[in-house]
């Protein structure tokens, strides 16, 4: 609430001319909200995404699938404080941050980032990196080797996630400089992870029996819990991206809620039209689709915009996980691409169209903005695809990406971890 106080005091004192001169100070309300947002975004991954994914696989793979998310939290955390943060948000240039903040060098309790402690910004951003990796794991569910997954994450955070984050969100990043709009991570998190997932699915190959044997979800109760936690956690993802507890944050959670709801209804509606029944997995998927679509736009659009974006997003992602999926022929097992990349692309483009002057306080020129958005999408998609391919191939050569056939048949829980659920 700093600015209001400053304003108040200024008002009281008289002039107000000096108010702008004051260095930013810590605001406890903003800090409280970002502390909580950090909790919420972490909750989206563990147990949120762990459950969303865990419920959709076969019973023999549920622990391993959840383990992919849990290990993302572990591996990415360590890499992020050591190297990731400085590469993403260290000053650097257009493409990548420098190494000045390696191991969070120089960040004390009192270092601020706006009105919150910088160390808080570090961990808030860390939770975004974590979920990005966890999303990717859906593409290779049921067949990736655990050690390969650990290695992949460590490399990918450093080589792909950190640079792209720098492009989009660091003040010196080239996409940021161009004015690409990405409020909370449509490109950084969703397109990036979705594309990486698709490439990884191609490299690792389809599951044994894919398309022939039943791979029906073993327990969608878990997926509904997961989707619900992802939904509520997303308030931290989008609302926290305002980096303050104010009207912007509040507006962002409202657009988030509206888009999630609209996409749920839209998915259910079209599913019923096309397949005769509206499914609960559809409701969960629709909600996630709406959340993905609104992510780049949450702080830029009004409620009407969010409503329309949600309706479109639900329908397009339904296609992404059905028609498009069949066309792509990759066994993207849990639809990292169909939901996150497709939703992210739709969102990035619609952001330009629905950006609201009332909300943003300035007018957005449609055509130039659209072009900038597309440039961002394409750049992120290409970089992510190429780098993911290289990393995957290197790991495949060095330690092998995929478990053996018998281990896959037996299930990852037993073959990789020596455990199982009853």
């Amino acid at each position, binding site marked *: 609430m700093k600015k209001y106080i400053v304003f108040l005091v200024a008002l009281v004192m008289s002039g107000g001319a000096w108010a702008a001169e004051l260095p930013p100070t810590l605001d406890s309300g903003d800090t409280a909200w970002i502390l909580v947002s950090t909790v919420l975004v972490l909750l989206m991954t563990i147990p949120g995404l762990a459950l969303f994914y865990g419920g*959709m696989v076969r019973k023999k793979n549920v622990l391993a699938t959840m383990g992919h998310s849990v290990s993302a939290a572990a591996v990415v955390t360590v890499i992020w404080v050591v190297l990731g943060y400085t590469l993403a948000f260290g000053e650097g240039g257009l493409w990548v941050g420098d190494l000045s903040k390696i191991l969070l060098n120089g960040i004390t309790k009192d270092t601020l980032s706006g009105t919150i402690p910088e160390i808080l910004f570090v961990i808030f951003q860390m939770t975004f990196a974590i979920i990005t990796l966890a999303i990717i794991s859906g593409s290779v569910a049921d067949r990736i080797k655990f050690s390969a997954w650990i290695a992949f994450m460590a490399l990918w955070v450093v080589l792909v996630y950190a640079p792209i984050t720098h492009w989009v969100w660091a003040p010196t990043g080239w996409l940021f400089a161009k004015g690409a709009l990405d409020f909370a991570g449509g490109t950084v998190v969703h397109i990036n992870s979705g594309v990486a997932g698709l490439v990884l699915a191609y490299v690792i190959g389809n599951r044994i029996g894919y398309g022939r044997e*039943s791979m029906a979800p073993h327990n969608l109760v878990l997926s509904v819990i997961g989707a619900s936690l992802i939904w509520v956690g997303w308030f931290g993802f989008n609302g926290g991206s305002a980096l303050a507890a104010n009207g912007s944050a509040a507006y962002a959670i409202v657009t988030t809620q509206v888009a999630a709801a609209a996409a749920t209804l839209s998915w259910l509606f079209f599913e019923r039209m096309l397949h005769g029944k509206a499914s609960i*997995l559809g409701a969960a998927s629709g909600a996630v689709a709406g959340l993905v679509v609104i992510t780049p736009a949450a702080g830029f659009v009004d409620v009407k915009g969010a409503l329309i974006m949600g309706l479109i997003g639900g329908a397009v992602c339904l296609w992404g*996980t059905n028609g498009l*999926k069949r066309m792509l022929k990759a066994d993207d097992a849990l639809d990292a691409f169909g939901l996150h990349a497709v939703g992210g692309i739709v969102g990035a483009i619609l952001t330009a169209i629905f950006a609201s002057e009332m909300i943003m306080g300035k007018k957005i020129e449609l055509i130039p903005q659209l072009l900038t958005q597309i440039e961002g999408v394409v750049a992120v998609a290409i970089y992510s695809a190429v780098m993911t391919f290289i990393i995957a191939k290197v790991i495949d050569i060095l330690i092998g990406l995929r478990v053996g056939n018998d281990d896959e048949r037996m299930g990852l829980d037993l073959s990789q971890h020596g455990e199982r659920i009853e």
Partner: protein
Amino acid sequence: MKLITAIIKPFQLDNVREALAALDVKGLTVTEVKGFGRQKGHTELYRGAEYVIDFLPKVKLEIVTNAEMVDSIIDAIISVTKTGKMGDGKIFVANVEQVIRIRTAETGWDAI
């Protein structure tokens, strides 16, 4: 001694148990199974992948009894489970050579 195996719809289990209790049937064993037969299954669609589920949940009852009671038990089962719809189920009868009650080591009819 005979073993009667009946495969029925799950929700009929309570009815059958009551009908058999009326015949003074002292014991039976129940297994959850899946059945494939004339009754057709259904299609499940998850994220674009369509699975035809041919196997439907059924309950298998196993009753060991003496030869005299076989017919009345079969009649009792049919009387409560017959709806005339596909999937009502099947009953099989087989021979059992020996029956032992672990608790007492009794054998044959005494063991039932």
